[in-house]
C-alpha cells in the first residue's frame, strides 16, 4: 500500500475538525467570520490536497484489490463483525476527487455568497460536517460504515435545507427531505439485513467475493436485496417515487444546492449501485428496474422542468432528470458510464447552481437596496442580466451547453455513452430500446428547458424593476473564481472517458476496471460498432441542436411579464407548473390518512377511549360500584357496626366448629 493512502483518515478527519471548530465558534463567537472562513475553507483545501496524494498513490500502485484500512472494531456481536474501516480503490478515488474538489470550490464560493448572513459560522460548520459524512460514505469499507455517511449526509442536507429555519416552509422542506431519505434508508437497512443473513458479513470485500457463489443469477434473494438497495438509492438520489423532496430542498442556500443537491450527496445512490455492481449484475431484473426507473425519472422530471419559473426549481428538476440518466447507465450495466456522467454532472450542475446563486445574490441585493419584497429566484423577475453580469452569463452558457449535450462539452460524451450503452443492450432485450428512446426524448427536453432558462434569465429585456436595475452587479471574484474553475471542468471533464472511436478513449472505464470486473461476467459485452457509434453521436448532436434552437425560436422572452403581473396558467401548463400534483397526491394518500389515524383512531379513540376508558377506568368503575354497595353498610352508626361485627364472628365460628 502506498504511504499516501495511509493518510486517508486525515482527509476525513479534517472536515470533522472544521465542524467542531466552526460549531464551537457559532455558539461562542458567531461574529468571528474571518476565523470561520479560514477554518472552513482551510480544512477543505488541506483535505483536497491530501486526497490528491491518496488518489495519486492509487494511480501509481494501480492495485487490483482495494486497500482496506481498519481502525477499530465497531460493532462486534456474535457472528457479526463490523469494523470501522475505510476502503480506498479506484471507485472511491473518483468520488474522493469529486467530493473534495467540488466541495472546496463551493466552500470558497460560499465565503462570498453567505458573507452577510448572521448564521455564517453555523453554515460553515454544517458544510464541513457534510463533507465529513460524504467522505465517510464514499470511503466506508462495509455497508454499515457507508450507512453512517449515508444518513449523515441526509442529516446535513436536513440542517442546510432548513438553514433559514425562520421560514416555516423552509423548515418543512428540510424535514421532508430527511423523511423521504429515511424511507430510502429503510430499504438500505433491509438490504443490509438480507445480505448479512445470506453472506454472513457486511464488508464489501467479503460480500463481493462471496456473492457469485452464494446467489444464483436472478434469484429471489439477490433480487430483493438489490431492489431494497435501490429503494435506498431512490430516496437519496431523488428517483421516482421518492424524488419530491429534492425540488423542495432548493429552500437551502444556493451553494448548498450546488454541493449537496447536485454534485455530491444526491449522486450517492449512483455510487452505491456502482459500488455494489456485482450484486446488481447478478440480479438482472433489479438492474432493469434501476434503468427503467432512471429513464422514467429522466423524462418525468424533464417535463416538469419545462414550466418552472423558479430558476432553482428548473435546476432541481434538471438534477432529478440527470440522476435518472445516471441510473439508466448503471442499470444497463455501464457502471463506468454512470460514474462518468456523475463526474461531469458534478461540474456543470454545480456551475449552474453557483451561477444561479450569483444571479440570485445580485437580485437579492438589488431588491434589498430598494426595500422591495419580490421573489429573487423567479425568472420572470430577471431577463437581460447578461449586460450586468457578463462573466456569470458566459459561465452559465458553458454549463448549459454541457448539460444540453452539445458536442465536445463534457455532458455530450457522458450522456451519449449512457444512451449508447442502453442502445447496445437493446440487442438482447427490446425493452432497452424503449428506455433509449425515452432517454433521447428527455435529452431533447433537457436542451429545451435549459435554453429556456438561459433565455429568460440573461436575454431579452430586464423585468427586475426600474430602480433595481441600477443595483444589479456582477458577483465578486470570490464567487466568479469558483465558477471559472467549474467551467473549465465542465468543458474538459469529457476527456476522462472519450468514446471508443476517438483516440485516448475510455480512460475512466479502464481505471474502474478492477472494481467492475466482478460484474463483467454477468453482463453481455457492451461494445458497439463504430458505425453505430457515429450514428448515435450524430443523433445526439441533432437532438441537442433541436432542443436549443427550438427554445431559441419558439420562446419570446420579450412577452414575459414580471411575476407579480403574470397571468395564471391553465391546462397542461398548470399541471406542469404544479408538478403533476404529485405532492398533493402524496399528501392525500399518505400524509393525511396517517395523521388522521394517529390522532383520531389511535390516540383519541384507542388510547383514551378504549384502553383508558373501557379497561382502565372501566375496572375502576367496577371497583367503585362494589365500593358503593359496601358503603351502604357504612352508616356511621356504631350500633350497626357492632351488629355486623358480631354476626361476622358468629359466621366465622360456625365455620370453625365442624
Amino acid at each position, binding site marked *: 500500500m502506498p504511504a499516501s493512502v495511509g493518510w486517508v483518515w486525515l482527509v476525513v478527519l479534517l472536515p470533522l475538525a472544521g465542524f467542531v471548530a466552526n460549531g464551537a465558534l457559532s455558539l461562542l463567537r458567531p461574529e468571528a467570520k474571518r476565523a470561520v472562513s479560514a477554518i472552513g475553507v482551510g480544512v477543505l483545501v488541506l483535505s483536497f490536497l491530501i486526497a490528491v496524494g491518496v488518489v495519486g498513490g492509487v494511480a501509481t500502485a494501480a492495485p487490483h484489490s482495494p486497500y482496506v484500512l481498519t481502525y477499530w472494531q465497531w460493532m462486534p456481536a456474535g457472528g*457479526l463483525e463490523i469494523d470501522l474501516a475505510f476502503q480506498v480503490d479506484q471507485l472511491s478515488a473518483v468520488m474522493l476527487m469529486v467530493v473534495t474538489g467540488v466541495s472546496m470550490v463551493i466552500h470558497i464560493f460560499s465565503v462570498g455568497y453567505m458573507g452577510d448572513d448572521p448564521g455564517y459560522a453555523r453554515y460553515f460548520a454544517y458544510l464541513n460536517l457534510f463533507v465529513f459524512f460524504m467522505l465517510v460514505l464514499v470511503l466506508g469499507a462495509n455497508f454499515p460504515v457507508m450507512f453512517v455517511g449515508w444518513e449523515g449526509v441526509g442529516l446535513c442536507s436536513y440542517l442546510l435545507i432548513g438553514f433559514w429555519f425562520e421560514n416555516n416552509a423552509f423548515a418543512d422542506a428540510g424535514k421532508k427531505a430527511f423523511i423521504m431519505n429515511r424511507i430510502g434508508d429503510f430499504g438500505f437497512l433491509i438490504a443490509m439485513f438480507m445480505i448479512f*443473513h445470506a453472506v454472513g458479513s457486511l464488508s464489501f470485500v467479503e460480500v463481493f467475493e462471496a456473492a457469485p457463489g452464494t446467489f444464483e443469477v436472478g434469484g429471489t434473494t439477490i433480487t430483493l436485496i438489490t431492489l431494497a438497495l435501490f429503494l435506498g438509492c431512490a430516496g437519496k438520489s431523488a428517483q421516482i417515487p421518492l424524488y419530491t423532496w429534492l425540488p423542495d430542498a432548493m429552500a437551502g442556500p444556493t451553494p448548498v444546492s450546488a454541493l449537496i443537491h447536485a454534485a455530491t450527496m444526491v449522486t450517492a445512490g449512483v455510487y452505491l449501485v456502482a459500488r455494489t455492481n456485482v450484486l446488481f449484475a447478478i440480479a438482472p431484473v433489479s438492474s432493469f428496474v434501476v434503468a427503467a426507473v432512471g429513464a422514467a425519472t429522466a423524462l418525468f422530471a424533464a417535463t416538469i422542468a419545462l414550466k418552472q419559473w423558479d430558476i432553482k426549481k428548473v435546476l432541481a428538476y434538471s438534477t432529478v432528470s440527470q440522476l435518472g440518466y445516471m441510473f439508466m447507465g448503471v442499470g444497463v450495466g455501464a457502471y463506468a458510464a454512470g460514474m462518468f456522467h456523475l463526474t461531469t454532472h458534478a461540474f456543470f450542475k454545480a456551475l449552474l447552481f453557483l451561477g444561479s446563486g450569483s444571479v440570485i445574490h445580485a437580485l437579492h441585493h438589488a431588491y434589498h437596496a430598494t426595500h422591495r419584497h419580490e421573489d429573487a429566484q423567479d425568472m420572470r423577475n430577471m431577463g437581460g442580466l447578461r449586460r450586468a453580469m457578463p462573466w456569470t452569463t458566459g459561465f452559465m452558457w458553458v454549463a448549459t451547453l454541457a448539460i444540453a449535450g452539445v458536442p465536445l462539452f463534457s455532458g455530450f460524451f457522458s450522456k451519449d455513452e449512457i444512451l449508447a450503452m442502453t442502445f447496445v443492450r437493446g440487442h438482447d432485450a427490446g425493452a432497452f430500446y424503449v428506455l433509449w428512446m425515452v432517454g433521447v426524448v428527455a435529452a431533447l427536453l433537457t436542451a429545451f428547458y435549459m435554453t429556456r432558462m438561459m433565455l429568460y434569465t440573461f436575454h431579452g429585456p430586464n423585468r427586475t424593476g426600474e430602480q433595481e436595475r441600477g443595483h444589479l452587479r456582477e458577483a465578486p471574484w470570490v464567487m466568479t473564481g469558483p465558477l471559472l474553475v467549474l467551467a473549465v471542468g465542465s468543458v474538459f471533464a469529457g476527456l476522462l472517458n472519450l468514446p471508443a472511436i476517438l483516440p485516448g478513449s475510455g480512460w475512466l472505464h479502464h481505471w474502474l476496471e478492477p472494481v467492475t470486473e466482478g460484474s463483467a461476467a454477468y453482463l453481455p459485452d457492451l461494445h458497439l460498432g463504430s458505425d453505430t457509434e457515429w450514428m448515435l453521436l450524430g443523433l445526439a448532436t441533432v437532438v441537442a441542436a433541436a432542443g436549443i434552437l427550438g427554445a431559441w425560436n419558439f420562446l419570446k422572452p420579450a412577452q414575459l411579464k414580471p411575476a407579480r403581473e403574470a397571468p395564471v396558467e391553465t391546462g397542461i401548463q398548470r399541471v406542469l407548473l404544479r408538478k403533476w400534483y404529485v405532492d398533493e397526491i402524496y399528501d392525500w394518500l399518505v400524509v393525511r390518512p396517517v395523521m388522521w389515524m*394517529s390522532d383520531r383512531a389511535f390516540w383519541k379513540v384507542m*388510547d383514551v377511549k378504549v384502553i383508558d376508558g373501557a379497561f382502565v377506568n372501566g375496572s375502576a368503575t367496577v371497583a367503585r360500584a362494589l365500593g358503593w354497595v359496601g358503603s351502604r353498610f357504612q352508616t356511621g352508626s356504631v350500633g350497626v357496626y357492632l351488629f355486623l361485627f358480631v354476626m361476622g364472628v358468629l359466621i366465622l365460628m360456625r365455620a370453625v366448629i365442624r
Partner: protein
Amino acid sequence: MNYAAWVLDALLLFPLLAGLVILLSPEHLAKRVALAGAVVEFLLSVPLWWMFEPGTAAMQFEVVHPWVPGWGIAYRVGVDGISLFMVLLTTFTMPLAVLGSWNYIRDKERAYYALLLVLTTGMLGVFVALDLFVFYVFWEIMLIPMYFLIGVWGGPKRIYAAIKFFLFTFVGSLLMLVAILTIYFMVYRATGVQSFDYHHFLRNIEVVRPFALLLFGAFFLGFAIKVPMFPFHTWLPDAHVEAPTAGSVILAGILLKMGTYGFLRFAVPFFPGVALHPTMVNVIVVLALIGIIYGALVAMVQPDFKKLVAYSSISHLGFVMLGIWALTVQSVEGAIIIMINHGISTGALFFLAGMLYERAHTREVAAFGGIARVVPALAAVLSLVALSSIGLPGTNGFIGEFLVLIGSFGEYPWATAVAATGVIFAALYLLRALQRLIYNKFERPELARMPDLSVRELLVLGPLVACILWIGIYPRPFLHRVEASVEALVEQVHQPEAAVAQARTPGGEQ
C-alpha cells in the same frame, strides 16, 4: 478489603444512609448533600467497569447473607453482563437527576431528595438481586418513592397519574409474587430444599412445567406492564407528564428497563418452552411491533412534548422486546444497548423538556418555535439528542436498533421489516417536534429573554451527550462486557428447544 466483596452491599446501603443524612440535614443543604451522595454512589460503582470480568457469564461480585433461613430466603446479590450496565446506568443517572431537580423542586426538598436516594437503592436492588424474594422486595420498594415523587411533586393531575402508575405496576407485581411463591413451593416439594435462590430455581425449573404457561403469564403481565407493552402502556404517558423532571428521567431511564430486564433475567430463562412457543412468539412479536409503530404514530400527534417523549419510549421499548424475543446474540445485545441508550437519550430529552418548562412554564410544543436563535446551545443539544433517539448512525441509537434488527431478521424477517419502518416514524415525530420547538418563525416575544444553558444544565447534559457519541462511535467496550452473558442466555434458552427438535426428528414428523 476486596472490592468485589463489598461493592454491592455498599451500593445498596449507601443511598439509604445518604437519604437518612438528608433527612437530618437542614433544608437548604438537602440538595447539596443529595448531590454529594449520588456522586459518591456513582464513584463507588465506577470500578465495576474495570473489575468486571468480560469473558464469563457467571455472576460476579456475588454476596450472600442469610436473611430468613427458615424459609430459605437469603440476601443474595450479584452482577453479570446483563445487569452490569443497568447498575451503572442507575448510578450514572442519579447525580444527573439530582442536578436536574436543582431549581425545579422548591418545597419539601429534604423529603424529595431522600426519596430519590431510597429509590436508588430500590432500583439497584432489582437489578442485582439473585434471590427472588429479595427481588420482589426491591421491586416493591422502588414503587413507593416513585409514587410519592409523582404524587407530591408532580403536575396538576399528579394524584391521578400516581395512582394509575401504582395500581398498574402493583397488579402486575402481585401476580408475579404469586408466581414466585408457586415456583418456590413446587421446587421445594420436588427437591426438599427451601430456597428462593435464582440459580436453584433455574436448575429445577422443570418441575413447574405443568403450570409453565400460567406462571409465565404472571411474570409476563408483571414485566409487560412495566415495559410497557401495548396495551398496558397508558399509565406511562400520564406518569411521565405529571412527574417532575427527575421523576420522568428515572422512570424512563431506569424503571422501564426493569420490565425488559425481568424478561431477560427471569421470564425467558425460566420458561423457554412457553416463551418460544410459536403462538406466544407471534403474540409477543406482534405486540412489540404494535408498540413500535403505534407508539411512534401516537407520539407524532401529541401536543405535549413530554407526552411525545413518553410515547416514543413505548416505541423504543418495542424494539427491545423484539430483540429479546428474537433471541439471537446480536438482537439481545442490541436490546441491552437500546436499554442503555434509551436511558441516556430519553433521559436527556426529559431533562431538556424540563429545562424548556422552567423557562417558558409550558410543555406545549406549539408554545415554542424559532428558539434556536435565542438559545443556540440548548437547540444544538436538543437536536443531537433527538437525532440519537431517531437512531442516526454515529449516535448510540443506531447501534442498538441496528443490532436488534439485524439479529431479529434471521428469525422473523417480515416482523423485522415492519419494525424497521419504525426508523421512518421516529424521524417523523421527532423532527416534527424539533421543527416546531426550535425552528420555524419566532413568534413569542416573551421567550426572547430565555437564558441559554447554564453551567449546571451543561453539567447535566454534558455526560449524556458524551455517552451518546461514545456508544455511537465505539460501542465495543459495552458489547464486549455483555457478550458472554448473552451468549450463555441464548444457548441456555435454545437448549431445551434443540433437545425437543432432536427428539422429534427420528419420528419423521415435521
